[in-house]
C-alpha cells in the first residue's frame, strides 16, 4: 500500500503574496473515504493539486515542509509513477482530456504508464464497464454531458490503477441523479477495490452515510472535524410556487421547440416571464436548461417564436437583443471582457442601463459585501472560482438588462457566498424592476429568494411550480 503524507506543508502561488496553504499536516488513512470541506478560496483545489504533484510543477512555490509518497518527495517521482498511485479528477470535466473519445483517452493513459500493448484493449473495456459507460466508448467527448465526462475521467483513473482518488468538486457540473450515482460508485470503489477517496465539496448533501473522515480548510489551515457538521446544513428541499400570470415582463415563449443533433430536446414550450421576480429553472442535467437559455439569447436555432412586447424577437438584431436579455454564463471566464476586476466593473458602469442606480459609492459598498473590495486590482483570471462567480454576477447586474438569465450562478459557492450573491440579485431586481430566471442545481437555502419555479422535465417545460 502506498503512503501519501503531507508534512508541515506551506505553499503560495505568488512570491510576494500571502500563503495559500499554511503548515498542513495530513496522512489520509489508506482505504478511507475522506471529505474535504472549506469555503470557496480556502485552498481546497490548491491542496489537492499539491497532493498530486501538479503544484508546484504548474506554478507557485513550497515555502515549508513537503508532500511525500512512500517517504520520497513527490516532485522526485515521475508523473507516470505518480499516476499509478494517485490521480486527480478535476472540477471542470471538459478540460482534462487530451484525446477525442473515451476509449482513446483511456488508451492514452494506459500507454503513459507503459502497460503492455496487448493488454490495453481489454483494460479499456474493463474500466468503461466498471462505471457503466461501455456504450460511450467511441463517442466524441465533446458531445457528452458533464456527468458522463466525469464518469470517463473516473474510468481513466480506474484503468491507471491509482490507489488514491482525489476529486476536486467533481459534481459541480453534474445533475443530482448523476451525482448520487457517482457518489455511490466512489463508495463501491472504496469498499471493493480498497481505494482511498478524497473529495473536496461544499455541497454536503448525501455524504453523511458515505464518509469516514471529514477535514476542514479554514484560514488556509487544515483541521479534522467530525461528521456532525454535515448534518447541520441539511434541510428538506424547499418548494416553490408556480409563476404568476399577471404582471408579466416583455419576454414570452410561444410554441418554442428545440432540436439538438437530430434529437428533440424541448417540445412546444409556452411561457411568459413574470416581471420583477426571480424564477428558478430546474431539471436534471442534460435536460436542456442551458440550451433553452442559448435559444432565448439567440445563440442557437429554435422553432416557434420568442417575443418581446408581442413582437418576434428574431426581428431584433443580436446587438440590441443582448441589451434586452442579459446572460450570466455558466463558465465565469466566458463572461469577462476586461483583465482586472476594476476594469471589468468600469466597463459595465460605462454601458449600464441604470447609471443612476450603480453609482461609485454603491459599487464600492457591494464589493465590500461580496468580500471583493481587496481584490479590485486583481487579474480576473487569478481570482478563485467563487470570487469569479461573484464578480460575474455583479458585472451583469450593473449592466441592468431588463431581463437577466443566470446559468448556475451559485455553482461552486459556499453557503455564505451564496447568500451574498442571492441578496445582491434580489435587491437589484426589486430596486430596478428587473426580471430574472436562474438555473441552479443547489436548492437548499433558496427559499427566501426565489419567487417561482418552472422545470424542464422530459422535453416539457412545466410551469406548475413544485407539486
Amino acid at each position: 500500500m502506498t503512503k501519501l503524507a503531507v508534512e508541515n506543508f506551506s505553499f503560495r502561488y505568488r512570491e510576494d503574496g500571502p500563503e495559500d496553504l499554511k503548515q498542513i499536516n495530513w496522512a489520509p488513512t489508506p482505504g478511507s473515504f475522506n471529505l474535504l470541506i472549506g469555503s470557496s478560496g480556502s485552498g481546497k483545489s490548491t491542496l489537492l493539486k499539491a497532493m498530486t504533484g501538479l503544484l508546484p510543477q504548474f506554478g507557485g512555490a513550497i515555502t515549508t515542509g513537503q508532500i511525500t509518497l512512500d517517504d520520497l518527495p513527490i516532485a522526485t517521482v515521475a508523473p507516470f509513477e505518480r499516476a499509478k498511485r494517485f490521480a486527480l479528477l478535476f472540477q471542470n470535466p471538459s478540460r482534462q482530456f487530451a484525446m477525442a473519445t473515451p476509449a482513446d483517452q483511456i488508451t492514452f493513459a494506459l500507454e503513459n504508464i507503459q502497460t503492455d500493448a496487448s493488454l490495453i484493449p481489454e483494460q479499456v473495456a474493463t474500466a468503461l464497464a466498471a462505471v457503466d459507460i461501455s456504450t460511450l466508448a467511441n463517442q466524441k467527448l465533446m458531445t457528452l454531458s458533464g456527468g458522463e465526462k466525469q464518469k470517463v475521467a473516473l474510468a481513466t483513473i480506474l484503468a491507471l490503477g491509482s490507489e488514491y482518488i482525489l476529486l476536486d468538486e467533481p459534481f459541480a457540473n453534474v445533475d443530482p441523479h448523476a451525482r448520487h450515482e457517482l457518489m455511490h460508485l466512489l463508495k463501491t470503489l472504496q469498499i471493493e477495490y480498497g481505494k482511498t477517496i478524497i473529495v473536496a465539496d461544499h455541497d454536503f448533501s448525501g455524504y453523511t452515510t458515505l464518509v469516514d473522515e471529514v477535514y476542514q480548510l479554514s484560514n488556509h489551515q487544515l483541521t479534522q472535524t467530525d461528521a456532525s457538521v454535515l448534518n447541520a446544513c441539511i434541510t428538506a428541499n424547499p418548494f416553490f410556487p408556480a409563476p404568476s400570470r399577471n404582471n408579466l415582463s416583455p419576454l414570452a415563449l410561444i410554441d418554442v421547440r428545440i432540436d439538438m443533433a437530430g434529437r428533440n430536446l424541448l417540445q412546444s414550450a409556452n411561457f411568459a416571464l413574470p416581471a420583477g421576480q426571480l424564477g428558478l429553472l430546474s431539471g436534471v442535467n442534460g435536460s436542456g436548461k442551458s440550451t433553452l437559455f442559448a435559444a432565448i439569447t439567440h445563440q442557437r436555432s429554435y422553432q416557434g417564436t420568442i417575443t418581446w412586447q408581442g413582437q418576434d424577437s428574431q426581428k431584433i438584431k443580436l446587438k440590441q437583443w443582448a441589451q434586452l436579455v442579459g446572460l450570466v454564463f455558466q463558465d465565469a471566464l466566458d463572461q469577462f471582457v476586461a483583465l482586472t476586476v476594476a476594469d471589468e466593473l468600469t466597463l459595465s458602469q460605462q454601458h449600464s442601463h441604470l447609471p443612476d442606480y450603480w453609482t461609485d459609492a454603491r459599487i464600492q459598498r457591494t464589493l465590500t459585501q461580496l468580500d471583493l473590495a481587496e481584490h479590485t486590482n486583481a487579474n480576473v483570471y487569478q481570482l478563485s472560482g467563487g470570487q469569479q462567480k461573484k464578480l460575474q454576477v455583479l458585472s451583469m447586474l450593473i449592466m441592468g438588462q431588463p431581463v437577466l438569465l443566470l446559468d448556475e450562478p451559485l455553482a461552486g459557492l459556499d453557503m455564505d457566498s451564496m447568500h451574498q450573491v442571492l441578496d445582491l440579485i434580489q435587491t437589484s431586481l426589486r430596486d430596478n424592476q428587473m426580471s430574472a430566471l436562474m438555473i441552479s442545481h443547489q436548492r437548499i437555502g433558496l427559499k427566501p429568494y426565489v419567487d417561482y419555479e418552472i422545470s424542464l422535465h422530459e422535453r416539457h417545460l412545466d410551469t406548475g411550480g413544485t407539486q
Partner: protein
Amino acid sequence: MTLNPSVLLIVLLGIGFPMAFTQSIVANTVVCCIALLYLITHHANLKTIGLVTLVSLPLALGTGWSFIAFGTGDVWQQAWLQVSRLFAYLYLGMTLTLTTKVKEMLLSFVLHLHLSPTFAYGLLAAFNLLPRIQRQVKIIRYSANLRGITYHLWQPQLYFKAILSAIQWSDDLAQGMASHGFSEGFPRTMTYQDKLPKWQWLLAGLLILIYLLLSLFL
C-alpha cells in the same frame, strides 16, 4: 497503394524544397498531375480540392500578372512558372492533409520520424480543441455584446481574448495529461501501429530523384 504519412511528408519536403529554386514548368505540371491522380485514387474530397483550387485561382492570377507586368526577361515563362509552382505546392500538400487523419499522421511521425510524443500529443489535443475555439470566438463576441461592445473579426481584442482562453485551456490540459500519467522524456507504450514497407522509402527516393532530373533537364 496507400503511402504512409511519414513517406508522404518526406516526398513533400524532398520535392517541395528544390521546387523553390527550379525553373521547370514541365516538372511542376507533372507534380500537379501525379498529386491530383493520387488524391482522386484515394477518394479525397473532390469538393475540397475544387474549393481550394477556386480560392487560389485569383491569387495565382495576381502572381502571374505581376510577373507579366513588372518582370524582366521572358515574363510569360516567369508567370507560368510561378503559377505552376503555386498549384504544385497546393496539390502536393493536399496529398498528405486530405488523405490521412491528423491522429494517424502525427503518430506515424512519432513512429518513423522520431517526432517527440510531447509535441505530437500536444498538437493532437490542440486539434481536438479546434471546434471549441470556433465556439469560443462566438462566445467572446456575444459576451462583448452583452456589455454593450462590438468586436469585429478584424479587431485584435477578439483574438487577444481567444488566445487568453487558449492559454488557460493549455494549462488545464497539461495538468490533465500529467495527472493521467503523461511524462515528458520517459518511454511509453504505443498501441498505434501502421504499415511502412521498405519499398515505400525507395519509392519516395525515386519520386524525388525523378523530380530533380525533370526539373534539371526540362
